[in-house]
């Protein structure tokens, strides 16, 4: 019987997500952000875990909403810049997205 627990160096597991002909959608990023902000431990009390999951869901929705607003604002800036430089077709493409 050993009373000494040797230190261990460990490496975690990454996941990979890819897309085709476009980037990730807002929901992907909002979920990624909420996963970084709220982590629910596997061994915490079920009541606490439920509250944490509910909070995480609320955070997810708030992030998604403001991400969409940020995208709209950025597109407004792009459209204005394209029109200012006489590229009306480019502005129309951005507007149609």
């Amino acid at each position: 019987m050993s009373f000494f627990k040797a230190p261990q160096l460990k490496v975690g597991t990454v996941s990979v997500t890819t897309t085709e002909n476009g980037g990730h959608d807002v929901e992907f990023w909002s979920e990624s952000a909420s996963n970084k902000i709220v982590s629910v431990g596997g061994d915490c009390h079920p009541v606490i875990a439920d509250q944490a999951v509910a909070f995480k869901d609320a955070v997810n929705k708030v992030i998604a909403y403001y991400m969409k607003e940020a995208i709209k604002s950025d597109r407004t800036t792009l459209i204005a810049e394209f029109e200012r430089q006489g590229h009306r077709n480019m502005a129309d493409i951005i507007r149609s997205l």
Partner: protein
Amino acid sequence: MAITTALCTSFKVEILKGVHNFTADNDQFKLALYTSSATLNAATTAYTSSNETSGTNYTAKGEFLTSVTPVASGTTALVDFADLTFSNVTITANGALIFNEVASGDPSVCALAFGADKTSTAGDFTIQFPAADASNAIIRIA
């Protein structure tokens, strides 16, 4: 030839020599992508261009990682990185190598196997790091 998820043995020696500094805002570490022809494992000692992924908008040596300053969770010390996205790329990769771009010789930190070929076509290729806790973080000293 295969990619196996592992902390590089040379890295374990180098952290005892003070070679690596994971403090945030300290652009040091990069993540490079590799094809299934690459051999990456605990014996890997440094970045190599051999069998590195190539494709539209992918640059050799990959991209810088955004490090989160190491913290302790209970008795476990851990390191985390922000998720990394290669944007608007057309590439296929089977694994990755995290290495120290600043230290002499680009010493490796860990090899990461994706388990299968992952492909993006004119899109995003995103590496998501695990939760920064004592059980899952990307690098842990328990």
